């Protein structure tokens, strides 16, 4: 499936992707409402941007008590159905990557929706640290193992 692929070794921790994300979804600049997150541990020389991996065995989906989280059979994308979400945050707890967001005013969970196929974060990233690419949706443990391998620059 197509999803946002991160290349943290190219990231400079500028947070442009966060701005682009909240602007696309909320029409304002608000990192608290973003669906992509930049971790900036500058002192440890570690930073990168991460968003939903649409895991093959999505723990968020498996743990949702109201079946508000589902997978699109066509695109493979994991999404939150606002009408069913009761804001219990089980999915936030379940996500091993911490990339499930929460909309404070709507009181519902939110993850990367790929901007309907035109992801703004990728457009804004001039460094090529984000890519909209065709990759396999992996089980979360495999994805985690992949992330933990040192990046080859």
């Amino acid at each position: 499936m197509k999803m946002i692929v991160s290349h943290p070794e190219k990231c400079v921790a500028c947070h442009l992707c966060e701005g682009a994300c909240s602007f696309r979804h909320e029409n304002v600049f608000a990192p608290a409402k973003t669906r992509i997150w930049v971790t900036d541990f500058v002192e440890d020389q570690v930073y990168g941007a991460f968003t939903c991996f649409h895991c093959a065995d999505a723990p968020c989906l498996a743990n949702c008590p109201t079946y508000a989280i589902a997978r699109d059979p066509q695109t493979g994308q994991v999404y939150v159905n606002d009408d069913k979400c009761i804001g219990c945050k089980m999915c936030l707890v379940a996500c091993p990557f911490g990339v499930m967001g929460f909309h404070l005013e709507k009181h519902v969970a939110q993850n990367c929706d790929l901007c309907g196929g035109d992801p703004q974060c990728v457009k804004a990233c001039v460094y090529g640290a984000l890519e909209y690419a065709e990759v396999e949706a992996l089980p979360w443990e495999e994805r985690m193992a992949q992330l933990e391998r040192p990046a080859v620059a």
Partner: protein
Amino acid sequence: MPYGWVGTVLRIDLTNGRIVREPLNMDWARQFLGGRGLGTKYLYEEIDPRCDPLGPDNKVIFATGPLTGTYAPTGGRYMVLCKSPLTDAIACSNSGGYWGPELKFAGYDMVILEGKAPKPVYIWVYNDHVEIRDASHVWGKDTAHTEDILRSETDPQARVAGIGPAGENLCRVACVINDKGRAAGRSGVGAAMGAKNVKAIVVRGTGAVPVADPVAFSRLVMESLEIINQSPVTAHALRGLGTASTVGFTNSVGILPTRNFQQGQFEQAQPISGQALAQTMLVRNKGCYSCPIGCARVTEIRGPAKWQGKGEGPEYETIFGLGSDCGVGDLAAVLYANYLCNLWAMDTISAGGTIATAMELAEKGYIPPEDLADLPFELKFGNPDAVIGCLELMAFRKGKLGNLLAEGGYRLAEYYGHPELFMGVKKQDFAAYDPRGAKGMGLGYATSNRGACHLRGYTMSVEWFAPPNQRLDPFSIEGKAQAQKTFQDKAACEDSSGICTFTTFALTPDKLCALYNAATGEDLDLEAWNLAGERIWNLERMFNIRAGLGRKDDTLPPRMLKEPLTGGAVQGQVVELEPMLEEYYRVRGWDEEGRPLPETLARLGLA
């Protein structure tokens, strides 16, 4: 609801602990654009320019621009304004990192610190929650420890802007450091904060910055990102090598100030150049908030060096200040000195300039031996231990020499009876372009409102960094007055809008003006935009005039006026300042004493 702005000023009276939220003065915001201009207006209206900069009557303003916090390219800047403890003129120091946007997300465009806290405090801002907290446990600690401790007792995602030991000890070249490695560096703003007993402002915000026309704004930003990503300066030089990319060039033409501006070429420039840095000690690039350039360097000292460490930097100016200006060609030493300046929060340009002044005074025998007797290093050019040792003396005001160094280069040289050996203007040290080889910069240094500064009117862009057929002859004085005025007004707009001046190496003023309009909903044409820049410049000038500065302060050290440079393409040059200055006053619409004429003030709406 205003757009681009979040509409609120946070005013903190430290003397009695009163916290007031007031609406942003939108009339002023429109007239003075934001950030630097707007902060100057508040300062101009609220303080007596003749006040003691280290006294309770001075105010310290943290100001953002309307583009701060948006995803406009480099929309992450904030400025610290006050009356400068170093220059006694207006101070406005600009910094990137993440702090400025965070302040806006917390719901404030500006923080005004007034009075003086009875004991060390820090300010904790979490959206509507604002609290003055005891800071006795972090007083004396460096900026990195302070940030870690304050984050642990507030919020792990909070952003911290504060001072180090230098600011606490009222060292006149102290700066404000945010996010551990970004500096609101110049004019001693850290000392002004220290004099108020404020260690830091810790901010966490979950709010939003709205813009007036999201569709137009988004289109403009995407276009701008494309332009910046294509530009050789922003996308290649600055991203590839950082500002340090300049070292090789300035050295080759002979304007890399060396040994307190005694030479313009440094024989050890190569080991401290941007290329050497990239090949040896650069770990990775970094960008401030919303930055598509990414010139910041995350570095680590590698190899068998006497010093070890890691952190952010160095910039070109730092390589000059702590390197060539002190005759030091050891990259590890420059990096280490840079890290110390970050930790103790000192301006690397002025700290370097002050040490270089001390070195020349010592070498010429103007410092009596008894004042140098107890030093664990020899105070002479080329000695990295002297640079690092002097930084410590300066930050902690250790001993007689430390106390003098902490007063800055001018006061140091004056004390020893040779103020002519101080290389700067209005008591603030020069930046890293020898004005004898770029005479527009000479005029710029002389007339800059915050004392010698390269960013106030960066005519280097046309004097050297333009294709040869488009250059304004760097050795001629012709047209430099007009060029300085244009660049000064342009920079005033850039700073005020909340973006980084480096963006404009790729973006033209009309693009920036369009971004400003789309964000705020204003409808400024380019003429009105430039006029706003001129208005800001003149307001700063009026502040300085009321503070007692004038034509006598718009000058350069005798070395720049009389001693020709000796090496490189710029051999034999001096700055012919007087004719440029007279023309500049005319172009500005000022009288022969450098005061804006009544008709100039009327034209700018400042009467």
